[in-house]
């Protein structure tokens, strides 16, 4: 893990990946905050985890498969879904059938 920290260029790149636009005022503040937090996170390097399996879900840590942990998938039966009118009513822009967005392809 590098402890060199992140630069404004790094943070701008990550913002780009995350579809976030940072204002010129926000960028230096985020660089400062992320470096402080990443510095703290670097303490994890003190631990040797070479033989430790990663844990993504609680059931894994209990040494159980999801099914044995009591988790299960519901029967695959057809049920009515949400009403289209109700769902489309929440859209910022719609023709009632589809979501409308600004143009995707620049000409």
């Amino acid at each position, binding site marked *: 893990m*590098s402890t060199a920290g992140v630069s404004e260029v790094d943070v701008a790149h990550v913002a780009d990946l995350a*579809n976030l636009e*940072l204002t010129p005022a926000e960028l230096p503040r985020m660089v400062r905050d992320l470096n402080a937090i*990443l510095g703290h996170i670097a303490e994890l390097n003190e631990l040797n985890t070479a033989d*430790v399996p*990663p*844990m993504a879900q609680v059931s894994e840590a*209990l040494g159980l498969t999801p099914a044995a942990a009591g988790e*299960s998938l519901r029967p695959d039966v057809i049920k009515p879904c949400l009403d289209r009118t109700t769902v489309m009513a929440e859209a910022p822009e719609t023709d009632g059938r589809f979501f409308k967005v600004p143009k995707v392809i620049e000409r």
Partner: protein
Amino acid sequence: MSDAALNLETITLTAARSAVVDGTTSAAALASAHYERIAAVDPKINSYLALTRERALAQAERVDSAVKVGDAKKLGPLAGVPIGIKDVLTMRGVPTTAGSKILQGYHPPYDATCVARLEAAGAVLLGKLNCDEFAMGSSNENSAYGPVHNPRALDRVPGGSSGGSAAAVAAGLCVASLGTDTGGSIRQPAAFCGVVGILPTYGRVSRYGLIAFASSLDRVGPFARSVADAATMLEVLAGPDTMDATSSQQPVPGYTSDLAKPVAGLRIGIPEEYFGEGLNPEIRAAIEKSLDALKAQGCTLHKISLPHTRYAVPVYYVIATAEASANLSRFDGVRFGYRSPESSTLSAMYRKSRDEGFGPEVKRRILLGTYVLSAGYYDAYYRKAQQVRTLLTRDFLSAFADVDAIVCPVTPTPAFKLGEKTDDPLQMYLEDIYSVAASLAGICGMSVPCGNTAAGLPIGVQVLGPHFGEATMLRVGAAIEAVQK
């Protein structure tokens, strides 16, 4: 309300239900009394973001009719009890913002499972409660709709992220409430406001209808004024749900009927790592008093070690932000919520909508989460954090081989002042030092009021139990509560 004996600030869930069922009051009168009190008191506290009066009174009417015709079968364990819902949980047709501008005007088309279960049990849902934006925060100062003030000291924070849920119960603005806890967001505000808050085991309560922050950590749980009330709520909420594949099929024991069992013989673990420097001396003294009380009731006390505790905060802020960066990608201005009006292309619309819709803390966490998942850093940060999560969980699994419950502080300090920590995110994250390990391990926990500081600020004690060990945890909590009065 005609009966002055029903003091809204102190009435328990059990007493409220009894008063409705035996006709001392009606569910409608109880709900109306709460709305009057909200109108009078909440402008100073800011706990409610939306009131659901019509739906509440319709439900109250159903309860009152069942009382009138003596239909006991229709009177569930929460019959007529006024309850508030954290605004990260969906209620059909009711404004649900998650404390964010990006969901302003959103009316979800469905009820969260926990919301539906409360109503099926007779609860009267009063409205939606303020919280940190997308449940990200430890002080409720990250809400786009203004901070919540601690009812016990208005210049102090109520804790977060479920600040509104804790404050509303403490201020008599609902009898009980729902919150969510990803890294301490139920236990910490419960401690700061002097109420009971439960973090159920991961998988115990369905997450369907909870607006996701970090899916492997998010949990729904109750706030109440007593351990028995919180146990009643948990019994209603717990159990499998076909809409959440991680909800567990494990049978739900009778939490309330188990409460009366004596705690004599239970082995209580005291983790040395939770009593180090940085712990406020008044909190330490109050917890030691609770431990003495357990000993006096026949528990045996055992010093234990949870050696990886100091790594819990860094692990949490990698895993929670990584999951958040993925979960919050759904807010893009296309299907619901806020869309920036000034964009001529799709990609500009995504960016501007997100930039204008999200607050600074949410952006900070999305950036951190995207960074730790990005090419070249995934193994160093994300995988490493997942490995240390295993170590933290093993700490608890081996501790619970020797003890039945763990007792420790919830927070290093009592409620701090509004604005005191907002300039330093790392300081704010370190507030979570005693709460995040249990979140990462998936075990259950609770905060129980155990006294006040000399300045009158509430102190909470944390009781932790093993996975699906809520029944024993609740008994220990009740034993601590019993010596407070």
